């Protein structure tokens, strides 16, 4: 299969995922609603944490919005895994496997659609956020945040795909969602590292997603610097390489 045909196969799979959104618009609602409710709710509840000495910004909503955007990407990516599990249950995935498209091409189609879909909750959250006073991150800050969101959507899709191929059932959905929720919330999600207490302080220090959060957050709480950006990019590259390898292994082992 030539490069052109491979590219067309990826594009067809992305179009199929987009069609799903157009035909069942309600399917996108949970991925948008949950992070938006959590964003508004947590801002209202924990908003005064920004008064603590050592907090890096006076605007808690600006501090929290990158987390909600990444959470939205996590849910959207995990939904790719759920959809794949449904396709496996219904036999559609078997037909895809016997097509001439190589397995990496099928995986690329699945995860690329997740990366694009993760922009939907991010856009809604940004609109809601700016309406309630989130600081404008600057063009560079926004670009970095959106890039982090798309990569997180891809990572979540790889995770969901790995589990879908392992369990071959939609009942693995809670595991797909909980995994992403855990890796995103065990970071500097609620407060800066120095203000975290107990076990979370240690976990957040070593969790690579903390670097992604800090890279996505920098424009919203201050200026954009290369020093705050490259650790996030490195963490994204590492997570992508690891989870894409796992998903690809699952894809190669998948038998018709």
């Amino acid at each position, binding site marked *: 299969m030539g490069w052109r045909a491979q590219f067309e196969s990826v594009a067809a799979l992305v179009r199929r995922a987009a069609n799903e959104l157009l035909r069942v618009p309600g399917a996108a609602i949970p991925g948008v*609603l*949950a992070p938006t*409710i*959590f964003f*508004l*709710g*947590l*801002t*209202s*509840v*924990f*908003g*005064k*944490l920004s*008064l*603590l000495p050592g907090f890096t910004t006076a605007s808690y909503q600006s501090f929290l919005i990158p987390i909600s955007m990444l959470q939205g990407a996590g849910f959207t990516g995990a939904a790719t895994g759920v959809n794949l599990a449904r396709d496996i249950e219904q036999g559609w995935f078997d037909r895809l496997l016997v097509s001439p498209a190589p397995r990496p091409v099928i995986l690329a189609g699945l995860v690329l659609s997740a990366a694009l879909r993760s922009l939907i909750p991010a856009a809604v959250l940004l609109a809601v956020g700016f309406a309630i006073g989130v600081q404008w991150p600057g063009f560079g800050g926004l670009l970095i945040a959106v890039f982090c969101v798309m990569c997180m959507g891809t990572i979540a899709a790889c995770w969901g795909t790995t589990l879908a191929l392992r369990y071959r059932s939609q*009942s693995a959905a*809670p595991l797909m969602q*909980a995994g992403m*929720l*855990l890796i995103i*919330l*065990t970071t500097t*999600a*609620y*407060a800066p590292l120095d*203000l*975290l*207490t*107990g*076990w*979370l*302080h240690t976990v957040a220090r070593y969790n690579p997603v903390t670097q992604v959060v800090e890279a996505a957050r920098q424009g919203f709480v201050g200026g954009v610097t290369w020093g705050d950006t490259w650790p996030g990019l490195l963490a994204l590259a590492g997570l992508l390489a690891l989870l894409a390898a796992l998903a690809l292994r699952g894809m190669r082992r998948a038998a018709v």
Partner: protein
Amino acid sequence: MTATDLRVIAALGARSVKQTFRRPQLMAPIIIFPSILLAIQTAGAGRAVDLPGFPPVDNFLSFMLAGAMIQSTMLAGNSGGIALAVDIEMGFTDRLLAAPISRFAIVLGRLAGTAALAGLAAVWFIVVGLIFGASIQEGVPGALLMIFFVVLSGVAFGGIGASVALRTGRASVVQGLFPLVFVILFLSSAFFPDNLMLEPAATVAEYNPLSFIVEGIRDPVISSVTWSVFGKAMASLALVGAIGIGLSALALRRRLRMGG
């Protein structure tokens, strides 16, 4: 209520508890999800106790325990509603309606199951809290009072879940209440003192009946029990319970009138 009704309620309640333990997707929102959030929020926002105006507490975990319990109870009510709707969809409720038993005992059986699960969740969070450093100021009687309030909350919120299940007969509709649970939680003092929340949530939380229920559960943990807090919690539970059970009775009557 006859002895037969009580036996039916006990049997259906036991079935409901077993059903939840057999299906991880019903158990996860009651125990696992609130436990994860409790762990992360306690460590993530633990320094909140240093904010001026925060009530005197040993640690943030002591404050958060009541919030985790009520979250678990509300989700138990939602899960109970989903299970009841599944029973309706699969025709199990029709078979019960055809049996020579009181119709309302069918709903009370489901509520008894939800109350039992809420009680188990209360014990779970008390044990977890004590292991990880929370202390209950009122000791064992305080812990029993917490369990009492949580069990009553299970009946009250279970009634609301059951009413939606009986009215619609569709599990997907009851499942749609899941985000609403969090909206109500965030607009109460479940996770933070209302005087330290941002507006307009702070004002809503001040008058939200859920805040009074949460404060009733929290009171024995962080201070001595006061009659005013106890009374407001009981009144709020009576209000939510009356709404839930009243709506369930109406929905059941409508379902029977329309032929199940």
